[in-house]
């Protein structure tokens, strides 16, 4: 086990190139997607959509790197990297964004330091309220959730 972990490093989970999966996945650490996935991915670690991979659906992740194709909404607390071969269609919420020349991105984009904090609270509803105070942000969300 220890060997396999050290080999995989950041990505204990790798979804192979010939895999076609539909559904809901959640991880604690990084994921590397080489095949096709349709559904929801939630992870605290990194998500890598490799070149040739196709991902459609909602994604919530720590940081994301896209080399392949993705359609759907994307939320990241950390950084989103779009490589030159990347194609992203959908809404994007992230703290930091890096777009390489040649990448395609069509959709609503919300980039800012506040976004990462808001999404780390785990609610997309928190985005509407400006979370200027990082400590109070989670409380506000809790209140908002209670009202709903």
């Amino acid at each position, binding site marked *: 086990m220890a060997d396999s972990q050290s080999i995989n490093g950041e990505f204990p989970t790798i979804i192979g190139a010939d895999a076609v999966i539909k559904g809901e996945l959640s991880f604690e650490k990084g994921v590397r997607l080489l095949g096709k996935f349709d559904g929801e991915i939630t992870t605290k670690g990194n998500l890598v959509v490799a070149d040739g991979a196709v991902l459609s659906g909602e994604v919530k992740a720590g940081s994301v790197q896209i080399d392949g194709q993705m359609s759907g909404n994307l939320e990241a607390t950390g950084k989103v990297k779009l490589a030159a071969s990347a194609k992203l269609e959908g809404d994007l919420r992230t703290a930091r964004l890096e777009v390489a020349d*040649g990448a395609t991105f069509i959709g609503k984009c919300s*980039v800012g330091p506040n976004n990462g904090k808001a999404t780390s609270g785990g609610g997309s509803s928190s985005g509407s309220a400006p979370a200027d105070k990082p400590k109070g942000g989670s409380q506000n969300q809790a209140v908002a959730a209670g009202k709903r």
Partner: protein
Amino acid sequence: MRGLRTAKTREVVCTHCGGRNEVAQRAMSVFCAHCKKRLILEDYNVKCYQAVAGYATCGDVIVHKQGRVAAPINAANLTVKGTVNGEVRVRGRVEIAATGTVTGKIAAPSITVIDGARLEAYCVIKPEPVDTNVKSAGVITKQDEDDTKPLSRTRAAAAASIPEKQPETAAKSTSTTKAEVKPVTTRKTASKTSTAAKTKTAAKSEGTSKPAAKPATTEKTSAVKSISTRRPRTPQSTTKK
């Protein structure tokens, strides 16, 4: 004239029609050779808020730290260190510095968002040239598509023997060839290429007119007319200068 033309020039894309113009290196403004509208070639440095309807230039726009723009921007490159709110159409690169904020819409082939920047916008980031207007900067690629499509359409129509669709496709093919020839030709070779274009369009329309003879022939004559009426302008202007 020749001496001038061999002097340093640069190519700019018209902000109105998307046509390409060769202009002197240090020119500040020029009239578009295609749509005859005035083009501004200067770079804009926005250091404070100015109540303008929009920034449209073939050069760059730089919004400095204290600068604020609440208007559409149409430029070759854009650097934002301050605040921009509006529709941004850029043919080159958009760079949002750490202090920059952009809200609204962005259409550009490439974008750089430096850490700390804020961006709340509908983005269309595509490697293809941005449509600054109706006739896009990527005229050639569109033409290629159109050139291939009408042929297949006409073939299909001929196979199905539907004569009604013919005039449309013929008109399309002629119009596309016209548009294709126009921006590419330099002034010297204009007369040669125009004749070549005539023969081309004639050949094409003939090729398409075989199934439905009457409407296509009218299209052909109209196309040739329009070319012959439009053509003389460019040589005249050169001789005057």
